[in-house]
């Protein structure tokens, strides 16, 4: 997967490149608008990350030119501007996502993955990770043949973790996807919910599937598969 980052803050660009490369992407960085537009129109990228305030051509202009020329790669805007009008403008021009600085790296990664996955995966209703089997249609969970009863929210949480297997999911994303809490809540509800889920899914078994990545979030993966 090839990504292009257009970002004039050299440090931000470099760290994003490092982080995303380590997450398995091939990443190019442009530090001016002209450069970015040139890269975006001459090579093929699976996703483009655009800063809005750039020297020369700004992010909005780049996106406008790309969409005019028929480039349909998903675009994520990064910006310190969080006025509603800016967001609306971004989406109107055809952006796929809009992240306000400061954002956490895991949040960006999760959103990139969600965009790249969009429309491509055929979501099966039967999924298994190691010896955990989930039937999304019947809403049934078994591990090592034992039936596990989950509450509705626990099931929603597990579903999110499984659907986005091996991805680090930040707490804010979990809160917004599972509980529709689209603002920071200064409580540790997600931690509590995760602890509950673990007590049913992981605690009775030797192999632990849910991992806490400190400072980043949670992920579910088969530790033996990787």
């Amino acid at each position, binding site marked *: 997967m090839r990504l292009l980052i257009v970002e004039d803050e050299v440090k931000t660009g470099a760290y994003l490149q490092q982080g995303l490369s380590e997450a398995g992407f091939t990443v190019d960085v442009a530090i001016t608008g002209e450069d970015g537009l040139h890269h975006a129109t001459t090579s093929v990228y699976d996703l483009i990350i655009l800063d809005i305030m750039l020297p020369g051509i700004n992010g909005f202009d780049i996106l406008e030119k790309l969409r005019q020329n028929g480039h349909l790669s998903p675009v994520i805007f990064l910006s310190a501007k*969080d*006025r*509603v009008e800016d967001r609306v403008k971004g989406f109107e021009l055809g952006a796929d996502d809009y992240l*306000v600085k*400061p954002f*956490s790296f895991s949040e960006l990664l999760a959103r990139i993955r969600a965009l790249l996955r969009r429309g491509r995966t055929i979501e099966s209703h039967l999924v298994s990770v190691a010896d955990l089997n989930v039937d999304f249609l019947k809403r049934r969970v078994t591990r090592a043949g034992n039936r596990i009863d989950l509450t509705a*929210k626990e099931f929603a949480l597990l579903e999110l973790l499984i659907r986005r297997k091996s991805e680090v999911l930040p707490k804010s994303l979990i*809160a917004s996807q599972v*509980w*529709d*809490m*689209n*603002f*920071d*809540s*200064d*409580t*540790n*509800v997600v931690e*509590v*919910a995760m602890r*509950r889920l673990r007590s049913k899914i992981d605690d009775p078994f030797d192999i632990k599937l849910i991992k806490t990545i*400190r*400072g980043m979030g949670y992920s579910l993966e088969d530790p033996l598969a990787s």
Partner: protein
Amino acid sequence: MSFWRRSLTYRLVCLFVLVSSNLLIGLGLLTLSATNEHFLELDEVYLYDKGLLVQEIAQNASSSEEVVKKISHAFNSQPDLSLAIFDRSKVLYNSPGFEFSTLLLNQLGSQSGAAVQWLAGTQTMRAVSIPVDGLTVVLAVNTLHHDHFMSSFRALMWGYVAVAIVLSGLLGWWVTRRGLRPLLPIIVKASHINAAQLNDRIPTQDVPTELQPLARTLNQMLERLEQDFARLSGFSSDLAHEIRTPISNMLIQSQVTLSKKRSTDQYQETLLSVVEELERLSSTVSDMLYLAKTENHLEVPNQSSVVLESEAVELLTFYELLAEEKGVTLTVAGNGTVKGDRLMIRRAISNLLSNAIRHADSSTHIAIEITQTDLVTTLSVSNTGETIPMPIQLRIFDRFFRSDQARTHPSFEGAGLGLAITKAIMQAHGGSIAVNSEQSKTVFTLLFL
């Protein structure tokens, strides 16, 4: 027009002049016409008096010749009186120096009894006709001395009126100047007040009664400004503190970590701690921005119907895990629908709920109650826990306000902006928030109008 609106002096002078000129001109016209009327009456009385004399003389005479002779004799020595005696249209006698015409006789005949005034050359005459034994005697008096008096009286009168009008204008100017003089100390005082001296007040005891409301209002404005300014200053220093503390934590920690070679675990530990500090800092900054936008109405509430009960129930599913951990039960009762921004209202309720759970005693109950009447809709969140003392209740909605307990207690996280945000959200919706805490029961109420 703009000047008219701008200058109070000009306005008052104009009003003074308008009132006094109306008054004086009216009075002048009245006096003049009354005087004129009076002279007319005097002339008529005089003429009729003489007429009686003529009739008396005529009665004592035996023939018309004698009548003419006697009358002409009697009136010869009256210089201001002219006389003519007619036998129908034939002139029997005409006093010297004045020519009576028959035209006049006809005019007098048609207006029997009344005095007639006419202009003869340069003189104004007034005349009556009196029938005497088949003859007609016409008596005329010269009104010259009256006219003379009237014209000089008129000149004097209008001169006086003009001077009086000018004087009243000047008086208006002076009164305005003098009337506005008490404003001067207010101006001087107000011009000296700045941000550093907001505690100065305009003295109200020397100010005239009419200006006291103005002075008091200005003082009240200063009072409010002083309070807001104090709050803002407090806010700035709080803000500096809120941001400085995590920054200095991170700086110290990173520098200490870098001061010698350490194991990977130790580096990881440092980075994690830095991430935690940064996350807190970032949420403080976004909360502050949100608060500022809400307070300044940049975040315009989306007007849609929000069903409070379903919002509360959804929030319960989020918070009930936390509540269970603490052994606290949550319930929602009642229903109500309000107009507003769903996300903002949700945030407001969420803040109250997380506070309630944080401060609730274990094994107690938190109740969300919704009531709706024609006038208001309320949503209250009540919990059982330590009573909030009155002085704290008064400041609880201030930004960055945390009770001392919250400052030292590690689990009392958050930047202390939750209630300030809730209040700002309610104000943006035209509503309000209230707190009541007594006997271990604390109730926060959101009021939607």
